[in-house]
């Protein structure tokens, strides 16, 4: 398996390169001049605008700009934000910690809730338990996250005073945002788990396992869940990427720094180096998650071999 993983990781290099070209081109093709966005509603003569463009390095041909960027990138230098002049790497690392913390906590909640609800409702199909679990999942799917976040703050910060409403650092500041994000993403997972488990539950090998006299718990754990998890794990991997990079609303409501918010802000500002850096970071996370998911298949289904 090791050669497989090494090959996959090696393939990320051209993949990231392709991503960076694409991002670079898209950013330059959509209308809006970064220098004008920078000046915004301030006074600026055309000469001043030209000066700003020059300082930002935008007056050079596109190819030169890109080659220059690649040259720096190959030395591990992601450049500086053209707006704030702060090093892009620093901008990413200061937010990545907060994003990772939130993603991990909400992922655990999503997996615990999603698996719990999904498995229970599948095993107790067509009972009130199934209906209740799926009702909770339906709530999660249809609830706008900003509403849930605001209600959590209202009840647990303002009224009960159990958790602070904002911030980052310390487990008690993590509870509300992680729950908001985790609950909403658990819903899709729960529905997926339910259908996957149901699919496997009536397979002949499950009947065989039962007829061998295995205990029901063992049948469920070894034969049902393990086989149902192939598709679930794929979705879980993708979901982790989304939790890490797409938690913009949660981050905004709970006033947490994060990679998602950084990406949105930098796109609005047309801050090329920052967008590039953030997209490369997120792409790397997705690639790594995908490799991990693929590796997990081997454990879940011994028939799968990587050659």
């Amino acid at each position, binding site marked *: 398996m090791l050669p497989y993983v090494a090959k996959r990781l090696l393939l990320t290099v051209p993949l990231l390169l392709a991503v960076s070209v694409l991002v670079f081109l898209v950013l330059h093709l*959509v*209308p*809006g*001049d*970064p220098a*004008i*966005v*920078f*000046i*915004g*509603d*301030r*006074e*600026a*003569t*055309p000469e001043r605008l030209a*000066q*700003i463009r*020059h*300082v*930002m390095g935008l007056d050079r041909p596109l190819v030169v700009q890109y080659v220059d960027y690649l040259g720096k990138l190959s030395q591990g230098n992601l450049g*500086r934000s053209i*707006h*704030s*002049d*702060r090093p892009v790497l*620093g*901008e990413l690392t*200061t*937010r990545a910690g*907060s994003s990772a913390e939130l993603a991990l906590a909400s992922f655990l909640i999503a997996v615990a809730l999603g698996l719990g609800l999904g498995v229970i409702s599948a095993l107790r199909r067509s009972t009130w338990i199934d209906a209740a679990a799926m009702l909770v999942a339906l709530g999660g799917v249809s609830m706008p996250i900003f509403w849930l976040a*605001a*209600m959590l*703050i*209202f*009840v*647990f*910060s*303002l*009224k*009960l*005073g159990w958790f*602070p*409403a*904002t*911030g*980052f650092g310390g487990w008690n500041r993590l509870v509300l945002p992680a729950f908001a994000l985790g609950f909403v993403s658990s819903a899709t997972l729960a529905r997926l788990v339910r259908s996957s488990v149901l699919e496997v539950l009536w397979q002949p090998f499950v009947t065989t396992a039962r007829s061998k006299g295995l205990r029901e718990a063992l049948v469920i754990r070894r034969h049902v869940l393990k086989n149902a998890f192939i598709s679930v794990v794929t979705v879980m991997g993708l979901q982790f990427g989304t939790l890490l990079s797409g938690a913009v609303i949660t981050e*905004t*409501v*709970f*006033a*947490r*720094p*994060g990679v998602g*918010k*950084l990406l949105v*802000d930098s796109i*609005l*500002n*047309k801050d090329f180096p920052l967008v590039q850096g953030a997209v490369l970071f997120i792409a790397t996370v997705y690639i790594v998650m995908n490799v991990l998911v693929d590796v997990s298949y081997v454990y879940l289904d011994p028939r799968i071999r990587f050659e």
Partner: protein
Amino acid sequence: MTERMKRREFLRRAGIGIGTLAAAQALPGVTRRIAFAQNAGTLTYGMNGGFDTLDVNVTTLPRVGRIGLHLVDPLVWQVRPGQFAPGLATSWTSSPDAAAYTFKLRNDVKFHDGTPLTAEAVKVTFDRIMDPDTKSQTAYSFIGPYDRTEVLDPSTVRVRFKSPHASFLDGASSPYLGIISPTALKKYGRDFGPLVFVGTGPYLLKSYRTDAEVVLVRNPNYNWASRVFSHNGAPYMQTIVFKLIEEDATRLATLETGETLFIEDVPTTDYQRLKNSRNMLLLEIPQAGSGWSLMMNQQRAPTSELAIRRAIMLAIDKDGLVKTVWNGVFKPACSPLTPNMFGFDAETCTKASYNLDQARRLLEEAGWRPGPDGIRAKEGQRLRLEFYSQPVVKNQEMAAFVQANLKQVGIEVNINILARAAYLDAVRSGRHHLQFWWETGTDPGEILRILFHSRNAGGGTNRNNYKNAEMDRLIDQIDATSDPAMRKDLVVKAQQKAFDDAVMVYMADPPSLYAYDRSVQGVWVDWGGNYPYFYDTRVVK
């Protein structure tokens, strides 16, 4: 057993949660105050949004000015419109043509890095603002036609301008022209501003976590406070934490939970509730500058027609707008200047009041006749205006209000909501008929220049694309006149001219709204309402 207890406890807590939610709905205003408060020596401030840099000389954001005012000292302080008190400068004179200013500096001031304040530091600060590599924004517009700074002796400095610049003292009183340490600038290079900042102010920059918080600590050596303030020596608060909390409701919630003690940009929807609150105080200061207004592009038909612009002025119900969109907290506006500005012309308030009949009459006289759907047309051209705005909720509400108003007189408005880059692209290239403007500042000449000077037309800030030689002359004269009476006369004339030419529609004048915990005492705010300053502040439990 313990398992059962836990479950019971869980159910009890869940019950409390749901019960409280229900009770809270039934009993609005009943709030349990919970202490997530920081140490007694810490003031936590809830800010509405992030910032570009910590460097006051570079930024474009008033938010950075708000933090930065604690890190630097201005040369002078502005106590009332056009009235200045000593800051880092003990005295100053200006040349008769307002093109040169000489400042005598205090000689007991030290930067946070221990180096003394000298005339050279003033020169380095101002020269750096002019350097294109600095990409300075607000400071660059404040320093205007800067020519050079001459160091006359270690504590005397003369700032020269290429043309008269009567508003320079106003700029020098803002945080944006605060003086920085040349030694630190040399030491940190490009990281000065983005990562570190060294001034002479009562607080030092301790740490900065992007998109999260800025922490300032007391400068123990501070002993050069202006006489504007009630004490001298180190500030009372040990630490100030500026926390970024963009979401309005969350920011307000943190004040109620004690996570913050002072917040900015209180939403107008919560105005009444806070006014009646026992624990929190509302600080409401009319904002100086130019309120929310409508720019009408004169380079594009049909807003190039005077009659159309006059009709629009008459057809917008400012009282209604202020009540509907701004919960009655903002005041209907009259002039391009807010009423607290030097030279505000009170007569503008009597001139254009809401009058639909008169608006319709003007349009009729200009040949615009209503079509079958009520929308007017002339020579086959439908009276349809393109309104460009950014996706800000309040802007969209105001745009919808204006759209409904203008429909009543037969003008169709098409609202285009665009993200920042595309919006700026559209309005700077003049594709709009209508767009909003809002501006804060304390010098009337600067405001009028931004809105009306032809130099700022054609892609700049004058998106009216209004070009008028007489107006240009008036604005240039304002900046060349230091005599208050003469200056006032010119400012009034410019407002009248803008009214006669129906350049813009002035809709709503906002206050700056802050809220703070009752325990916070001694907050100073500039008369323009933009810079709460915590030098004299204590928290008394």
